[in-house]
């Protein structure tokens, strides 16, 4: 039974170009990128992503013209075994087009931003050759993400799911042999491995869910699965949904698998913005929204999902307050906001979750990219401070062009300067005014201040929680919202106000237009993105109604007022602590003294990494050590292989085969053959006596014999 239909009108036939466009871009860059300049590579990649956006827009338009009914676009046969038919089919419905537009739209802006960012980043890291690789990976990510959101079965979704995981791995470890400070270090590749392995744990859950699903439903296709939900025992659905939740927790960084996301900030900033804030990590939210018919049928699972999301939201928000790295604060903020979304979709407020997903993509991408702009500004300032005040930007470029060896050691001997550490910043409002205003917009949107986009989406989640009777979740999220505003305020005061706490901050420079322009677009969206689903208008709700069940959320004044008051209060608190008396260089965080061990806990991320280290990783290492040393090395290798197998074999070959069969049989035969040949040749060599006449005689003898043969034949 197919609820979706195949339609020949409209632009639906373009659907495969969602994937083909970025793939074309990356192939072009792989093949011709070596001869093109950086500009051309960047713009080709951006154009490929932009083409995907255009296709998404055309699909959305066609879908609207089609009355919002889902459309399947078959593309390729994949697996046909007997009656099992798994094809690659594109599913165009209001949910997937929403994701497509967000992914390709934000993705294109970040591509453009990355042209400017990577131009400088590869030079600060002294390896300009990686510019092309970055854009190839970025396009690959867009392609994989498009597969994820456009697949019409769980299997295609899983292909994209793994594809984005791979891109995440590749891009976190982009500077795999040096850390963000351009020192030789394996920290980045460790972070990449951590992300990959943690995601494997989640994918394990997803796979189990998929196995059960195929076992029970006999299909991966969305419509076929959903149409049978009512015929299946709820217990099995609960199992599927909870195993799926493990996958969601991995990809969308929820408790307990969120630990990889903060470390993933090791990747270049555009990666953090695109993959680890705006798009990939929201795949889990999309998965739950996509599986709405499954989740809606089992309230028990919904409660767990909502609780996991809410706890994650609060937990991560508290950690964010204690962080010093500008990107790390945003990383925990992302985890927290993802918690909001997961809680929303867990409560069945799919529209609210998707709404927050969209606005979050805007303002978090804006924040990350602005943070990247700040980092670049600091690096420029550091460069200037380190090399005197003459124009050394061009000089640095030249140096970078000459290669690593020459100038490689130059900066390692300097004191380690972390351009992402907020304790090195301060006063950037004056040196980077545009970035400041953009960051402020993003921050206010994140804090949920009226009328920015974040206010509307967050308020809708809270209102839904309140109305649907998830009281615990509501309060958890409200407190999380307070902490959100607190760490946003703390960050803005620390970064942009007060006096520069480091030479680099004093010499920071504003970023070029190629970086600022995408930020401006994102800032516009972060400001007015709330218009997508204003209370009473419900554009997004009506749009998504074609695909998933929706509740037209009503605006609840008390909820809105409480959350806004809390946000304002938090900002006021942050001003009291960080704004009134700006932090001095090398000063301890003022929250540390009053909060004591609580702040230490926040600062150290509540020791979760250490806990995992002690509970999971160390025992795992011990176990593998035991398996390797004792079981494998001593038992299997030393005893079983060496003694039992090799010993028996040696005995057999030495005694039985070698002495009797080989030496007395084969060797004797071969030796006899040799001796016989020798004696024969000794006899024959007498014939070869060197006398020409003898040879002539033998020829004559031959002639006589042959003639005789002819006669007597």
């Amino acid at each position, binding site marked *: 039974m197919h609820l979706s239909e195949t339609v020949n009108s409209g632009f639906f036939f373009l659907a495969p170009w969602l994937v083909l466009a970025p793939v074309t871009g990356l192939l072009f860059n792989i093949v011709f990128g070596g001869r093109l300049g950086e500009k051309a590579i960047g713009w080709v990649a951006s154009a490929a992503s932009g083409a995907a956006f255009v296709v998404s827009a055309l699909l959305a338009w066609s879908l609207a013209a089609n009355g919002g009914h889902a459309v399947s676009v078959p593309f390729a046969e994949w697996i046909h075994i007997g009656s099992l038919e798994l094809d690659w089919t594109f599913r165009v419905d209001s949910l997937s087009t929403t994701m497509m537009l967000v992914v390709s739209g934000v993705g294109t802006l970040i591509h453009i931003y990355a042209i400017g960012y990577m131009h400088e980043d590869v030079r600060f890291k002294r390896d300009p050759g990686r510019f092309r690789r970055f854009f190839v990976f970025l396009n690959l990510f867009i392609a994989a993400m498009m597969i994820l959101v456009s697949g019409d079965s769980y299997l295609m979704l899983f292909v994209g799911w793994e594809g984005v995981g791979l891109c995440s791995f590749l891009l976190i470890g982009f500077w795999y042999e040096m850390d963000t400070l351009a020192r030789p270090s394996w920290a980045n590749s460790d972070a990449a491995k951590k992300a990959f392995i943690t995601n494997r744990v989640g994918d394990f859950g997803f796979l189990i869910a998929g196995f059960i699903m195929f076992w029970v439903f006999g299909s991966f296709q969305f419509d076929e699965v959903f149409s049978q939900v009512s015929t299946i025992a709820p217990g099995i659905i609960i199992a599927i949904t909870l195993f799926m939740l493990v996958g969601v927790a991995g990809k969308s960084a929820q408790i307990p698998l969120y630990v990889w996301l903060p470390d993933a900030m090791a990747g270049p900033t555009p990666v953090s913005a695109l993959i680890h804030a705006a798009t990939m990590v929201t795949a889990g939210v999309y998965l739950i929204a996509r599986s709405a018919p499954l989740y809606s049928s089992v309230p028990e699972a919904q409660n767990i999902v909502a609780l996991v999301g809410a706890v994650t939201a609060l937990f991560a928000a508290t950690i964010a307050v204690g962080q010093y790295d500008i990107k790390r604060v945003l990383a925990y903020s992302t985890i927290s906001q993802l918690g909001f979304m997961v809680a929303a979709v867990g409560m069945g407020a799919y529209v609210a979750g998707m709404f927050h997903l969209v606005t979050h993509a805007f303002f978090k991408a804006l924040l990350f990219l602005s943070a990247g702009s700040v980092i670049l500004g600091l690096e420029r300032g550091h460069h200037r401070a380190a090399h005197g005040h003459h124009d050394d930007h061009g000089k640095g470029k030249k140096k970078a062009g000459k290669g690593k060896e020459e100038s490689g050691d130059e900066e390692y001997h300097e004191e380690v300067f972390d351009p992402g550490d907020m304790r090195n910043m301060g006063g950037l409002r004056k040196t980077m005014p545009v970035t400041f205003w953009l960051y402020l917009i993003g921050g206010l949107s994140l804090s949920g201040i009226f009328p920015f986009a974040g206010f509307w989406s967050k308020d809708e989640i809270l209102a839904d929680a309140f109305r649907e009777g998830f009281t615990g979740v509501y309060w958890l999220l409200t407190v999380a919202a307070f902490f959100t505003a607190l760490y946003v305020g703390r960050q803005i005061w620390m970064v942009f106000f007060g006096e520069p706490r480091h030479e680099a901050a004093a010499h920071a420079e504003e970023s070029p237009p190629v970086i600022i322009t995408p930020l401006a677009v994102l800032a516009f969206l972060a400001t007015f993105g709330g218009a997508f689903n204003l209370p009473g208008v419900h554009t997004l709700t009506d749009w998504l109604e074609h695909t998933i069940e929706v509740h037209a959320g009503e605006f609840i004044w008390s909820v809105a007022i409480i959350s806004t008051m809390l946000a304002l209060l938090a900002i006021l608190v942050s001003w009291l602590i960080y704004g009134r008396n700006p932090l001095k260089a090398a000063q301890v965080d003022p929250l540390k003294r009053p909060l004591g061990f609580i702040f230490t806990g926040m600062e150290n991320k509540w020791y979760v990494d250490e806990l995992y280290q002690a509970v999971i990783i160390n025992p795992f290492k011990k176990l593998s050590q035991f398996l390797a040393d004792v079981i494998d090395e001593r038992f299997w290798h030393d005893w079983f292989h060496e003694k039992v197998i090799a010993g028996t074999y040696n005995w057999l070959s030495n005694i039985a085969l070698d002495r009797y069969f080989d030496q007395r049989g084969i060797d004797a035969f071969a030796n006899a053959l040799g001796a016989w040949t020798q004696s024969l040749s000794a006899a024959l060599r007498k014939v070869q006596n060197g*006398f020409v*006449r*003898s040879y002539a*005689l033998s020829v*004559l*003898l031959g*002639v*006589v014999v042959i*003639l*005789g043969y*002819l*006669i007597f034949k």
Partner: protein
Amino acid sequence: MTLDLALFLILALVAIAAALGMLLSRNAVYSALFLVLNFVTVAVFYLLLGAPFIAMAQITVYAGAIMVLFLFVIMLLGAERLPDAKVLPWQKPLAYGLAFVLAAEATYLFVTRARPEGDILPPEAAVNTLDNLRALGIALFSDYLLPFEVTSILLLVAMVGAILLTKKEKWERK
């Protein structure tokens, strides 16, 4: 017994005797002179067989040019006689025996298997005149032109090769 048969038998005896003389003479000069005699006898056979051109070629090329060359070389090298040596003592009787068997076998084979039709009649007078020569010349320069020209090149190559072989030491000395 007709006259030409008697002539044949006498000439055959002379030819065999000359060949044996060449075979058995200890002195290479005698061998060469016996061979000249043999060649001349064979040339007479050619005349009897109606091949006057071949007979003349035999006399001039073989008996004349080639054998003179042999004599020159023998005298030049002073190798008329070799010192006696007692190597391969059984070689000589074995050679006689085998040669005899070979002759018998060849004769038998030719007579039994390759016997052509007809007998050799004494040639008419016209054959041993210009007619044969003309026919031979026409055949040689029409049907066999290419082999003829190739033969000329072969002779040239042989000449150059012979000169080069004997001049080699001088080349090296340079």
